[in-house]
C-alpha cells in the first residue's frame, strides 16, 4: 500500500496516495479541472494543452504533470486561473478552423465540451484562418487538420505492432500538424483505428464508413454539464419584468442565412410577450428599411463579407444603445468564414467561372458600381464596431436569445441551461 499524503485543493483537505497524478486525485474527489490532452493511461502525461494550469504551492503549473506530495496546496478555481483556461481553449478555437455545425463529432467533441463548461460565448482572439489541407490519403481514416488541437494523444498512443508511430508531429511552430504514416496506418486493426478516433478529443481523426449512432442533440456532451455548479450559470428568477414603456429593437442579417431570425420566432407563446413588450424598428421582421428611432437594442446576425455589410453594421452601432452579436457568423464569421483560408480569387473563379453548372462562354465575375464590394475575407462584427454581447449558436436556441434580450432590457435574472448553450 502506497504512502498516503495530505493535500489541499481549493481549501478542501484531501488524502491521496503519494506520487499519484493530481488530475486523477482531483477527479476522484469530485473536483473538476478542465483539460484536453490528459488521458488516464498515457504515461508520462503529455502536458501539451495547458488547459489544466493551476496554482501549485502558489506557482502556476499544469495539474496533469504534478505528482501529489505531502502538503501540496492547489488552487483551481480562482478568477485569474479560470480566465487563463478559458483563454487557452479560445486560442484553440481561434487557431484551428472549427466549424461545429459542420462537424460529425459535434456533441462528442472534448474541445466543444470544454467551451461549454467554461462558458465561452466568443473568442477574445482574432481567428487566424490558416489554410489547412484535409488529408484523404490514408486508406481508412480522414485526417481533418482544421480540427486538430495538437494534443499529442494519437502521436503517443497509437502505435503499430512493432512499436512504430502511426501519427507524428510535422514541422514546428504554428506550422505544426499531425502527419499520418500511410503504411503503418494500413497495418492497424479495425479496433486500433476506432481507438484512434475515440482518443482524439476533436473531430480531427474520422474513420471512413463509421457514423455516430446517436443523433445530434442526444450525444455525450449535449445535455448535461459534468460540473455540479457551473460558475457562469446564474440562478433563475421567476418574476415578470416591470414594464413602463415599450422597448425598441432593431435586427439585421448581414452575411448570415436568416437562421438566427428563424430561431428568434421559435419562442412560441412568448411571442405574445414580445408584442406586448417590444416594438421593432429597422428589421426584416417589419420590413422597415431605415432607422426611424433610436433603438435600445440591435441584434446582429451574420458577419461582414462585403462593403454594404460594413456600412449597415456601422449604422446599427450609431442607432443602437446595445449591440448583440447573435449566432456564430456574427460572433466570429461562422460558415461564410470557411472561405477565409482560401484566396478570394480562387473562391470567385470557382463560383463564377469554373463552376460546372455555368453556361459556357457567358461566365463573368459580377462587378458593378451599384453592387457591394466583396471583401478579402469575412470579418467578425467586433472587428468593425464595438459589440456589447455575444450569443453563440448556429442558430442560438430561441429561449437563449429571448433570455438575453429580457436581461439586457429589463435586468431580468436568467439562467441559461447547459443544453441551450451551443455552438451548433
Amino acid at each position, binding site marked *: 500500500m502506497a504512502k498516503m499524503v495530505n493535500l489541499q485543493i481549493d481549501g478542501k483537505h484531501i488524502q491521496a496516495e503519494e506520487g499519484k497524478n493530481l488530475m486523477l486525485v482531483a477527479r476522484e474527489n469530485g473536483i473538476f479541472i478542465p483539460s484536453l490532452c490528459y488521458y488516464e493511461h498515457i504515461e508520462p502525461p503529455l*502536458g501539451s494543452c495547458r488547459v489544466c*494550469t493551476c496554482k501549485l504551492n502558489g506557482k502556476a503549473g499544469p495539474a496533469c504533470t504534478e505528482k501529489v506530495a505531502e502538503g501540496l496546496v492547489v488552487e483551481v478555481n480562482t478568477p485569474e486561473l479560470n480566465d487563463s483556461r478559458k483563454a487557452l481553449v479560445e486560442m484553440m478555437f481561434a487557431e484551428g478552423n472549427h466549424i461545429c455545425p459542420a462537424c460529425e463529432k459535434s456533441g462528442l467533441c472534448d474541445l466543444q465540451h470544454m467551451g461549454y463548461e467554461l462558458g465561452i460565448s466568443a473568442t477574445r482572439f482574432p481567428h487566424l484562418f490558416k489554410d489547412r489541407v484535409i488529408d484523404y490519403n490514408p486508406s481508412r481514416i480522414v485526417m481533418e487538420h482544421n480540427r486538430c488541437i495538437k494534443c499529442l494523444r494519437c502521436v503517443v498512443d497509437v502505435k503499430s505492432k512493432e512499436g512504430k508511430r502511426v501519427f507524428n*508531429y*510535422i514541422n514546428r511552430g504554428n506550422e505544426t500538424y499531425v502527419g499520418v504514416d500511410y503504411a503503418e496506418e494500413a497495418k492497424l486493426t479495425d479496433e486500433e483505428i476506432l481507438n484512434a478516433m475515440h482518443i482524439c478529443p476533436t473531430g480531427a481523426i474520422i474513420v471512413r464508413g463509421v457514423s455516430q449512432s446517436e443523433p445530434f442533440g442526444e450525444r455525450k456532451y449535449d445535455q448535461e454539464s459534468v460540473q455540479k455548479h457551473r460558475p457562469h450559470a446564474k440562478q433563475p428568477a421567476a418574476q415578470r419584468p416591470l414594464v413602463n414603456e415599450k422597448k425598441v429593437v432593431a435586427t439585421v442579417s448581414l452575411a448570415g442565412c436568416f437562421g438566427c431570425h428563424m430561431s428568434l420566432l421559435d419562442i412560441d407563446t412568448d411571442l405574445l410577450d414580445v408584442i406586448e413588450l417590444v416594438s421593432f424598428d429597422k428589421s426584416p421582421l417589419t420590413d422597415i428599411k431605415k432607422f426611424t428611432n433610436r433603438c435600445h437594442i440591435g441584434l446582429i446576425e451574420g458577419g461582414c463579407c462585403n462593403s454594404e455589410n460594413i456600412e449597415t453594421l456601422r449604422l446599427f452601432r450609431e442607432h443602437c444603445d446595445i449591440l448583440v452579436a447573435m449566432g456564430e457568423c456574427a460572433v466570429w464569421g461562422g460558415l461564410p468564414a470557411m472561405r477565409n483560408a482560401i484566396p478570394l480569387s480562387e473562391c470567385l473563379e470557382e463560383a463564377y467561372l469554373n463552376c460546372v453548372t455555368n453556361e459556357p462562354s457567358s461566365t463573368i465575375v459580377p462587378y458593378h458600381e451599384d453592387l457591394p464590394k466583396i471583401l478579402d475575407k469575412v470579418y467578425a462584427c467586433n472587428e468593425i464596431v464595438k459589440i456589447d454581447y455575444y450569443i453563440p449558436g448556429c442558430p442560438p436556441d430561441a429561449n437563449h436569445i429571448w433570455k438575453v434580450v429580457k436581461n439586457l432590457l429589463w435586468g431580468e435574472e436568467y439562467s441559461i441551461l447547459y443544453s441551450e448553450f451551443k455552438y451548433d
Partner: protein
Amino acid sequence: MAETIQTIFTEPAHTQMMNRLWDLQLLNGYIRDEDITQLASLFGLSEIEVEGVVSFYHFFHRQPTGKYTIYVNNSIVADHKGCQRIIETFERETGARLGSVDRSGMFGLFETPCIGLSDQEPSALINFYPFTQLNAMKVKDIVGRLKAGVDVADICDQPQDNIRFTPADNKTLFFRHLEAGASITKAQALSPDGVIDALKISELAGRGGAYFPTWKKWQAAKEQGASPKFVVCNADEGEPGTFKDRVLMNACPHSLIEGMIICAYTIGASMGFIYLRGKYRWLLPRLEATLADYRKMGLLGKNCNRIEGFDFDIRIQMGAGSYVCGEETALLESLEGKRGEPRTKWFFPVEKGYLQLPTVVNNVETFCAVAQILDIGTDAYLKLGIPGSAGTKLISVSGDCKLPGLYEIEWGMTVAELLELCEAENPYYIQVSGPSGECISIKEKFRRISMLDLLARKDIRCGGSFMVFNKDRDLVKVLLNFAAFFKQESCGICTPCRAGNFIIQRKLERLDNGLAIEEDLKELKTWGEIMKTTSRCGLGKTATNSLILAMDKFRDYFGEKLDKSYNGQSMKFDMEAATREYETYKK
C-alpha cells in the same frame, strides 16, 4: 594516446539520427524520399517519425537547396544594418528568389534568424561558411567567384573575435592563459566535494541566463545512483544578439573542455557532449582539433589526466537550426536524435536527462568559468566584481554603437558605463539578454549589471546579449521582428506558445498599421501574461517579456501609435486593402 574518440559508452543507434541527416543534407543538398525510407528501416522507425525530425530543423530540407546554399541573417540588428538590401542583391546576382533555388539549381537563398555574428552584420552563411560585413559590392564579388568555380572555403571570412574590453590591470578571467590540464590537476587535488565547495564559495551561477547555482546542479547529479552519467555543454547559443560563446569557443576552446572534464570528474560522468548550434559549423574543425590535442595529452580518454578509473571523452553533436534546442530538455531530446521538443517537468535532467540518465547541462561560459576559477582559486575570483556578485561577465554588444563586439565586464558595471565603452550613438532603448530578456529605456542607464537582485528589479541580470537601439528605430518594428522570430521558433507542442505567438504577431501588425486602440494594448498585455503563466518551457514563458515591459516603459510612444479617431464605437477599417483583390475584376 588515442587521437580519436574512445568507446567508453556505446550510445543507442537512434542517437545518430541527426548526424546521418547532416551527412545526407550536405551530400545532396536535401533529404530525399529514399533517404527517409532508409533511415526509417535503419533505426526501426516509421517514415513519419523520420519526417517529423527532418521537418523540425531549419537546416534540413526536403527540396533541393542548390549547390551553394545561402542563409542571410534577418535578425533585428541585421535588419537595421541593411540585410534586406543584401537579400535583394543576392536575388539579383544569383537569380534565386528568397526561399527557393535558381533555375540552374546552383544557388539556394534562404533567411535565417541570428547567426551569432551581430557584431559584424550584415552577415550570411554559404554552405555553412561565414561571410561577414557584407555590402552589395562584396555580394556581387562572392557570387561571381562562386560562379567561376572557386571553393567556398577559400573565400569565406574568418569572423573577428572583436574582444573590445577586458577588466583593467589584466584582471580578465576568461581570456587569461590556462595551462593545459592545470585546472584538472587542481580539481583532483580538491576532490569532487572540494570542487563543489569551491563553486559554492564562488557563487557561480548558470551563465546561459537562468542563473541556477552551478554547485547545486552538480551536487544533485553527483548524488544520483544511476550510471553512466553525462555532461552536456549547451553551445546552442541561439538568442539573437548573443555571440559570447562563439568567441569563447574560437579563442579558448580548451578552457571549455577542461570545465567539462572537471564536471565529469566531480559528478562521475563517463561521457560528454558539446551540442554545437548548426550555424557555428565553421567552429567545428577548431573544436575537434582541441579535443584531439586533449586526447593526445591524455586528458581525455581512458584514465584522464592519469586519474585511475576516470574514463571520459567528449563528442560534438551538431544542432540543425532550432532556437528552442537551447532549452536544456529540448536539447537532450535533440541529442537523442528526436524532434527538439522540451520535456515536461516530470523529471529534471540531473535525475533523468540524456537517455533518461543523470545529466548536467551547462552553458559554454559556465564551463569556461569553472576551469578558470579553479585555476586562479576562489580567493582571487571573489576579488572580481562586487560583493554578492563576484566575477566577470561576457556581454555581446551590438546595434547602434561604434564598437560592437565582446565585452568582459566585472559585475557591477552600470549600463551607462557600458554604453560609453561601446560608443553607443544616441541610445534610446536597449534590449538586454535578447528578445526573451528585458527591454530597458535609456532613463534606466544607471542600473547596475549584476546578479544580486534575483527578481532583476533594481539590477539587471544580463544573459549575454546587449542590443543598442537609437531613437530613430521603430520600436513596434523591433517587437514585430521578435514576435515573428518566436512564432517561427516555437516547437509547436503547447497551445499558448504555438497559437499565442501567432496571435501576438497579428495584433502587433494591427498596431503597426495604425488600426489599434487603447483596448488592444491592454489585451496584448493580458494575453502576454497568459502565455507567461501557461507555457510549457522558457520560450513561451519569456516570449512576451519585452513587449509587456516596453508597453510600460514607452507608454507615450505606444500612445502615438494608436488610432486617435476612435470614439469607443466604430473601429478603423482599411476598406481599400480589404477590397483590393476584388477591384481587379473591374473592367
